[in-house]
């Protein structure tokens, strides 16, 4: 955004999976910028390409996936701008975790079962010692202790433990702590709370919120959990069928959505205050990414769909300062929403 230095710029990114049935277009023409200390949430249903997008930022796409076009520019700590799509293996290896760390969805199995937590820290530090200077012995323990304290774990207990001796929530926190070890510029969190119970989810959200306030680094969340986005994100991008359909500040997205899909997502979440409002799910299911519908990809499920929607895919239209939505009928969507009274979604504001 204006005046803010962007650490990451993605332009017109296209990613496809080669499958037996044909090309799965998981990410289609995605563009966004990420500010230095900004947190951006990608929300959407399963299969909307969020995880693929996250993986592409550390170039960890599965074998059958490839970046068809687009660019990912990353401004490294050295102010050098790296083009992630063309980075060679060794540069890529160093880029990972030093510049951009990623906490995965499957935290329970993210740690090597035969290694103590301490050794996970040691391993990571050792293989990045060329750029970070060697961090070992006492200095390593100190740094690991610091990171574990940031995520509110007891380092004395955790460092000497094996992964199976820790609970799921603790393992997820260890992964976040491990992510902080090398002071990355960007931390990507892919469904960081999904596999956890509600209380543990809260604890993780608290940890992340504290981190966000106390430490300056950019975060990208990939989640279908709106409350996570509401509490942690500065900006929110709604993704549908592999593209961003609405992008704006968190308040704009939650209080003034202009895309019918965002509205649908918000209506599917229960509110704390209002018991009267009925929950509604979005009819239909996400489209087949191999055989996409013509025009706007959301039109088969959209109550506002017209002939124009069936023929022409809408571009991202500026609907408010810093807010864009890809909908031909955004004005009508907006006025309907405001008429219903956006305040029913205020629970998020109350909590935050």
């Amino acid at each position, binding site marked *: 955004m204006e005046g803010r230095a962007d650490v990451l710029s993605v332009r017109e990114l296209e990613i496809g999976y080669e499958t037996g049935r044909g090309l799965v277009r998981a990410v289609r023409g995605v563009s966004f910028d990420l500010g230095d200390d900004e947190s951006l949430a990608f929300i959407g249903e399963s299969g909307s390409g969020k995880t693929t997008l996250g993986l592409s930022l550390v170039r960890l796409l599965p074998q059958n996936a490839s970046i068809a076009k687009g660019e990912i520019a990353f401004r490294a700590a050295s102010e050098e701008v790296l083009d992630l799509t063309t980075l060679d293996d060794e540069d890529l*290896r160093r880029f990972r975790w*030093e510049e951009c760390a*990623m906490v995965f969805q499957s935290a329970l199995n993210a740690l090597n079962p035969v290694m103590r937590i301490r050794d996970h820290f040691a391993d990571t530090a050792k*293989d990045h010692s060329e750029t970070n200077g060697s961090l070992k012995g006492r200095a390593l323990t100190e740094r690991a202790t610091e990171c574990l304290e940031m995520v509110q774990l007891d380092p004395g207990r955790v460092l000497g433990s094996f992964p199976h001796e820790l609970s799921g929530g603790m393992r997820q926190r260890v992964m976040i702590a491990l992510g902080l070890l090398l002071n990355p510029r960007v931390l990507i969190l892919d469904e960081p709370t999904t596999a956890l119970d509600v209380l543990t989810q809260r604890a993780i959200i608290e940890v992340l919120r504290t981190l966000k306030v106390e430490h300056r680094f950019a975060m990208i969340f990939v989640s279908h959990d709106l409350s996570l986005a509401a509490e942690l994100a500065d900006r929110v991008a709604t993704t549908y069928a592999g593209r961003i359909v609405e992008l704006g500040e968190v308040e704009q997205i939650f209080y003034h959505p202009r895309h019918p899909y965002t509205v649908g997502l918000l209506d599917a979440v229960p509110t704390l205050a209002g018991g009267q409002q009925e929950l509604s799910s979005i009819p239909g299911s996400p489209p087949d990414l191999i055989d996409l519908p013509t025009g706007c990809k959301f039109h088969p499920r959209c109550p506002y769909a017209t002939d124009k929607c069936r023929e022409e895919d809408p571009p991202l239209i500026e609907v408010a300062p810093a807010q864009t939505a890809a909908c031909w009928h955004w004005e009508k969507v907006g006025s309907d929403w405001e008429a219903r009274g956006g305040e029913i979604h205020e629970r998020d504001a109350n909590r935050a």
Partner: protein
Amino acid sequence: MLRKIASSYLLRRVAKALITIFVMASLTFFLIRLMPGSPVEAYIANLVTQYNVSYENAKQQAASLFSLDLNAPVYQQYLEYLGNLARGDLGESLISRGVPVSEIVLAYLPWTLFSIGTALIISFSLGIMLGMLMAYKRETKLDHILTNLGSIVSSVPDYLMGILILVWVGVQWELIDITNMRGSLSPGIQPGFNLTFIGDAFYHASLPIITYVLGTIGLWMLTMRGSTESTLGEDYVTVAKARGLKERRIATAYVGRNAALPPFTQLSISIALVFGGSLLIEWLFVYEGLGYLLYNAIQQRDYPVMQGVFLMITTMVIVANLLADLLYSRLDPRIRVAGRD
């Protein structure tokens, strides 16, 4: 005390091994003593008819040889046998009069341990390395060739493998001098810590070792290939990549280390099989280990020696299993806490 034993994995495992050895020793005793036409009776009858010794004398001789008191009730003989066993007294050889069985068995044991131990170490480490290579290069020509080789060698029985080596490499192609390779050492070589001795020991053990390696390596290769492939799909391997670890480190400490656990559990089973197979293999190559000793003892009806060899082989298998299990619990921390059984 009992509770302490029960709570410690190590103690529990050692206790279990001791119990197994005890059961095994008891079975050996009752088999020899109570089978119809038992070796003891046969021996007595033999003495009486062949050497015209009086029955009483023959019985006394038999008792001293088997270190059994044949007049005592069976349970007393059994207790005495156990007592002797605990002191390492297995009786005396029938053929080499006056030589304790334990002495004979201990003289042959090192060669069996040496050849089997070396073979298992070579076969296991080579097998898991090849298995990993196959998984990393899966669906390539190399993988197909190695997979087929692995299944072929693991489906040929080891004694057949030995015979094939003997017949083809030794007799038909005359690539090696099988007559000179007989025995466990060349004549005149003194045991000692020097190159000549070690080289000669390996020279004589080489054919049994090659046979054991060929007999077991296929299993490790195929198991390791499968477990590496599934380990490669584990989340912690992807995460290790995301952490920017070096390929080498990931392949060893993350993939290999975890993938080697399933083949390692098969090691215990394999040890018993190889020990059993060694009886035939040693005879085949005239390698002077326990198997060779047993073969000769059977030929000469040297019952105390047979009994001694049986006991020694089972004890070795149990001890080897115990070691493999303890090592496994070191390799996989999850076992240490949860315990087993």
